[in-house]
């Protein structure tokens, strides 16, 4: 059986037979090829060895550089970080500290090294570090390790101060270390106490305001109800009917009284909203029901100014709202639309699905419109947009309250207005 050689030698043999008709091997040629292959391999080996040596040196240099860079990075972080860092061995003996520790404890770093961690804690807590370490070593369950706790420490001079402490474990070739991060929280604790004090004060002020509102509500309404009640008695006293002049005077008393009562209600609403005492009960509310009720209520006022109220076209929609407040909102907008309309104008209440999930309800008047320069102050309280001296009654609180109510119900409010043509005030509420 013919002997087989490694592939390289087989190829060389084939080449050494090339051109020889008897298939014999040209030994000179073969030896020449084999010799050059040896030389080649020797040269390759030298190059490979050289490359390996160089790569090893380069790797060592890279390793050294990375180590130095890592050390420099740690050093820079430790010397610049505001928290104190302390590294201790398994016996709780401090091996190194950073600059912030010196500042926090008012002890030079050199004096800290070699001391026990216990020396950083006030006497009732002096045993804690040893306990943390022994617990951790004995049970393997970290106590302070890998979490942050609040405790106390003691400065040189004896001042006990609050700290936040977290401890990490560092496994090194020469044993285990514990790295403690200590944050002096004296300032933060003082600030927290200040915040608590301010909150208590604010709550007390708020309670006082509520009490004042409640008292004012009672104190204002009681006499006002008496005024309105007795005026009504005067008006409907069949025993001694009023003459025309007396009737006009009583009408003035009643009109003024109702207006004042209305105003008090609105101001109280505003105060309640601002003090967060407005209770809103959001439920499913049928838009058509509220709209129809409101239009009925506004009809007499509209009639008095010969304003045509357009027919309501059913929305067949249910929104998420507080029914009472929703009605208050619509009445307010409708009332404005009557007040600021022109004599004999029209008033339209309409609805639409403005975008998926929302119902748009708009009140359109044919009044003189609102100049653009006044748009920005429209929802601000006590802003009457220059109508202060007109004969239209109001205190400039209605729209502010309306806006707050709409937003409290999770809705949106806005308006479009064109001078000379009128305005549309609209609200959008989430559809059920």
């Amino acid at each position, binding site marked *: 059986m013919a002997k087989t050689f490694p592939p*390289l030698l087989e*190829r*060389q043999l084939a*080449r050494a037979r*090339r051109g020889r008709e008897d298939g014999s091997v040209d030994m000179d040629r073969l030896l*020449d*090829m084999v010799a*050059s*292959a040896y030389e*080649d*391999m020797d*040269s*390759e080996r*030298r*190059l*490979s060895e*050289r*490359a390996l040596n*160089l*790569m090893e040196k*380069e790797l060592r240099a890279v390793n050294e550089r990375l180590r130095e860079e890592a050390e420099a990075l740690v050093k820079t972080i430790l010397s610049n970080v505001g928290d104190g860092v302390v590294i201790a061995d398994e016996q709780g003996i401090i091996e190194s500290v950073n600059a912030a520790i010196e500042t926090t404890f008012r002890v030079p770093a050199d004096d800290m090294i070699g001391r026990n961690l216990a020396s950083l804690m006030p006497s009732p807590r002096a045993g804690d570090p040893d306990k943390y370490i022994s617990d951790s070593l004995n049970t393997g369950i970290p106590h302070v390790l890998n979490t942050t706790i609040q405790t106390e420490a003691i400065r040189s001079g004896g001042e006990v101060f609050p700290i936040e402490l977290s401890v990490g474990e560092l496994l090194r070739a020469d044993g285990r270390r514990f790295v403690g991060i200590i944050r002096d929280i004296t300032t933060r604790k003082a600030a927290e106490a200040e915040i608590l004090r301010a909150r208590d004060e604010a709550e007390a002020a708020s309670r006082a305001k509520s009490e004042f509102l409640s008292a004012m509500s009672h104190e204002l309404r009681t006499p006002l109800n008496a005024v309105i009640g007795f005026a009504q008695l005067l008006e409907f006293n069949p025993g001694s009917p009023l003459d025309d002049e007396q009737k006009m005077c009583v009408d003035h008393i009643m009109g003024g009284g109702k207006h004042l009562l209305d105003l008090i209600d609105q101001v109280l609403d505003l105060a309640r909203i601002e003090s967060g005492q407005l209770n809103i009960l959001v439920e499913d509310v049928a838009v058509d029901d509220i709209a129809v009720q409101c239009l009925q209520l506004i009809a007499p006022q509209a009639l008095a100014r010969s304003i045509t109220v357009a027919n309501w076209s059913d929305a067949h929609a249910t929104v998420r709202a507080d029914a009472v407040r929703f009605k208050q909102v619509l009445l307010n907008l409708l009332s404005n639309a009557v007040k600021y309309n022109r004599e004999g104008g029209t008033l339209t209440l309409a609805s639409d699905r403005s975008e998926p999930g929302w119902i748009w309800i708009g009140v359109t008047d044919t009044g003189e419109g609102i100049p653009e320069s006044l748009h920005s102050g429209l929802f601000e309280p006590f802003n009457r947009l220059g109508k202060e001296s007109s004969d239209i009654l109001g205190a400039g609180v209605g729209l502010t309250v309306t806006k707050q109510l709409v937003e409290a119900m999770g809705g949106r409010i806005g308006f479009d207005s064109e001078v000379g043509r009128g305005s549309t005030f609209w609200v959008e509420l989430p559809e059920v």
Partner: protein
Amino acid sequence: MLIRQVLWTDEDGWRDFGPDAPERAADLVLYVAAPAHFRDPLRIDELKARFPGAPIAGCSTGGEILGGEVYENSVAASAVWFDDGAAVIVSEPIDGADQSEPVGARAAKRLDPDGLKGVLVLSDGTRVNGTGLVRGLQGVLATTVPIAGGLAGDGTAFQSTFVDCNAGAPASGRVALIGLYGPGIGVLTGSFGGWVPFGPERRVTRAHDNVLEELDNEPALDLYKRYLGEEAERLPASALLFPLRLQTSDGHSITRTVLGVDEERKTMTFAGDIPKGAVVQLMRSTIERLIDGAEEAAMQITGINGPCLSVLVSCIGRHLVMGQHTVEEVKVVADHLGPDNRQIGFYSYGELSPSGLQGRCELHNQTMTVVTVTER
């Protein structure tokens, strides 16, 4: 398709190989010759006189290949008669490497794209940036047209190379394209090196065109010398034995030969661009690996029947590594391509051929590149 080959050597003068020439002028005469024959064109003139009226193109070399043999100081030619084909030779002068791309584009525009089956490129080897030249050619020629060829050589002198085409005397600073036309003409290519990387991968941190300045922020020449060890004493000659593997951002790699080193600026000049950011690695080879590489190049070409002209463009660096064994790489290619194949070729300063699966022509260094022309 009929191929007749002629060879002039010091020892034997003119010799002819292959079938008799038909009465009509050859459709293409492709020749290669040692640089000395371009400086004293007596033999080239004799060659041209033997093939009157034929389109003729040739170039200077770092060693001539004909019929499975490698020659020095010779003139070797292949004359081709197609059954129904033609070769059109165009050329453009080139003054400097920075003109390579526009010159490539201008030359390519002079070839009629209609029916073009392949383009053989013979380019000046010292005044051309091969990468730019290929870019210029590709910008004009259809992607379906194979482009292959090489950069002329000047032995190991790297001084001046020559390209000859049709009219006028052979000249330095010229790019010639041979456009092949004909219904049955087929052009196939194969290219392979046989080099293996060694040492760590390095990133090119500073480079300008084909001049490499820094690797991993260290002067490139310092690093190169350090890894070459005693071989560095024979620089720049030994640089041909240690090319760089260049890995581009798209993940494919090509081999780049060192053309020269600048000891003062510690830079290295390559036979192709070295883009900044690319990853490079030193390469080395052995005679056996290079021979295997040549066979691999030939094996990339399959399905050839009948007469075939193959143009072998191998790198001068391979010639230097293989020395007297150079002929082995030519023989393995000839063996693989079969008895109907006629080889002509040269040792070059850069090979042009499609690479890998992408099939786009590229400048290669240190490869054996094989281009076959057949007619069915």
